[in-house]
């Protein structure tokens, strides 16, 4: 009987471990309904296996590509859905709420939230801190005629983000993420 309990406990732990790791992955399927209304869409779904494959085609010698390679090494997925519309009100708050509800879940923390009534531009940046790193990153940009959701499933090495900024068209951000993680650790 004891051994059965032990097995059940081990199975429960085994089931819980991957679930915890997958928390940073957002379900973005509801946004597919916006496809017919958008004039331009970008849909990027890159899972761990594709990241590994992509990494193989990055140079091991060129410092720039090495930096990207190292950044990608730990990632489990990169997901982007971007829609551009030719009129206002093409998407509803309900469309966004499905995403925001997930980001209100355990583990996520909003580090930036910008509401601009003048520009109608709303930007939210969420992270999922885990230890000294970030287990996930989510960016939600909702403008009048544009909706962008980016979900990076980590672990994201903060030091390596800086190494790839300013390369391959990636803007140099000079963002200091350390405060966000330190704030969380307290």
């Amino acid at each position: 009987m004891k051994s059965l309990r032990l097995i059940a406990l081990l199975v429960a732990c085994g089931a819980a471990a991957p679930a915890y790791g997958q928390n940073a992955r957002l379900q973005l399927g509801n946004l597919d309904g916006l496809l017919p209304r958008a004039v331009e869409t970008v849909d990027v779904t890159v899972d761990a296996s594709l990241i590994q494959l992509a990494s193989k085609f990055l140079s091991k010698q060129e410092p720039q590509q090495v930096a990207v390679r190292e950044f990608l090494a730990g990632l489990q997925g990169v997901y982007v859905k971007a829609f551009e519309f030719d009129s206002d009100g093409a998407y509803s708050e309900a469309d966004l709420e499905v995403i925001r509800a997930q980001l209100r879940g355990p583990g996520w923390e909003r580090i930036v939230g910008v509401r601009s009534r003048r520009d109608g531009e709303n930007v939210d940046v969420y992270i999922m801190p885990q230890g000294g790193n970030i287990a996930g990153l989510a960016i939600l940009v909702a403008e009048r005629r544009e909706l962008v959701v980016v979900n990076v499933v980590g672990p994201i090495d903060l030091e390596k983000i800086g190494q790839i900024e300013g390369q391959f068209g990636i803007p140099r951000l000079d963002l200091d993420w350390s405060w966000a993680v330190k704030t969380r650790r307290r």
Partner: protein
Amino acid sequence: MSRLDDELRAALGRAEPPPDFTARVLARVAAEQAAATTLARPGVTRPRWRRALADLFRPLAWRPALAGALAAVIVAAGLGAGEYRRHRQERAEGERAKAQVMLALQIASAKLNVAQKKVQEHHRRGPGAKPAAHQQSN
């Protein structure tokens, strides 16, 4: 008319073979068999024309080997082509994955840039605000 009939009858008429015909045919067959047996024995050289003929048809004896070799070449070529196609496909998929990853990183970075600019604008307006705080601009 009757002369022509006579000539035709004479030409097409049945003629009995000479009495030694059977003996001659049997003797010829025996001679042929004897010659073949003699040539088959080692050390006995064959006539030039027979050697030429044998050389001409020698590859026929290697047909199974030739067929095997050809099959091996075809299989190797097929495997090589398959491997090359697989490699090309993998390369194309890899390049596509790389492009997708780079696009995703560019979009993520661009949007982070937008967020950062907004926060900086807010800081310029009201210094001292915490960067993690929920910013609101009008």
